[in-house]
């Protein structure tokens, strides 16, 4: 069964550094998403991406964050100048279509900022 994959599974970085989290969505999916979960809290939406542009973003997704689909298979989340409060689990998801379509989640990348 096709699945969403994410790399790395765990990333440790120092405050102020840039990180890139990588995702490979399911191949025939057109909509891509990033979510974040701070330890012990619920999962929060960050951004959705379709047709090479952001379709929606939350108030969390400020200028520190950016997303890109650099080729036909990868979908990346870049965090510039990381802060301690960026420590969280980051989930990538993809779907065939919007709104009424099932979203498939990857296993997550645990980001630790020290």
């Amino acid at each position, binding site marked *: 069964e096709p699945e969403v994959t994410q790399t790395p599974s765990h990333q440790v970085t120092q405050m102020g550094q840039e990180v890139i989290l990588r995702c490979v969505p399911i191949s025939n999916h057109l909509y891509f998403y990033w979510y974040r979960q701070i330890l012990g809290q619920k*999962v929060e*939406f960050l951004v*959705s991406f379709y047709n090479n542009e952001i379709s929606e973003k939350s108030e969390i997704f400020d200028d520190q964050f950016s997303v890109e689909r650099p080729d036909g298979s990868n979908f990346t989340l870049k965090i510039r100048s990381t802060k301690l409060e960026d420590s969280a689990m980051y989930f990538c998801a993809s779907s065939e279509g919007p709104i*009424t379509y099932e979203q498939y989640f990857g296993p997550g990348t645990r980001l630790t900022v020290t």
Partner: protein
Amino acid sequence: GIQVEQSPPDLILQEGANSTLRCNFSDSVNNLQWFHQNPWGQLINLFYIPSGTKQNGRLSATTVATERYSLLYISSSQTTDSGVYFCAVVWGTYKYIFGTGTRLKVLA
């Protein structure tokens, strides 16, 4: 915005017991999924269930969209069922809005 509340917040069961988890939402939704977050933090998709009833082994789910709730049933619980169960809804646009979660612990 929409509120997605889950109950109970915490649940402890003996192995073999049955349980019902509830997800209430405050407005009409376009989509609903149930997830299990395992102890390693991974989100496992259990059911895509915007309406109706589905079953998968010991798990089943029912969504009554007109009354704005969904139920997840776990029968004959096992220790591997432990973790956090989330429901998530799509309201209006693309994103999932996750519920508050039910933390389940199954004791051997």
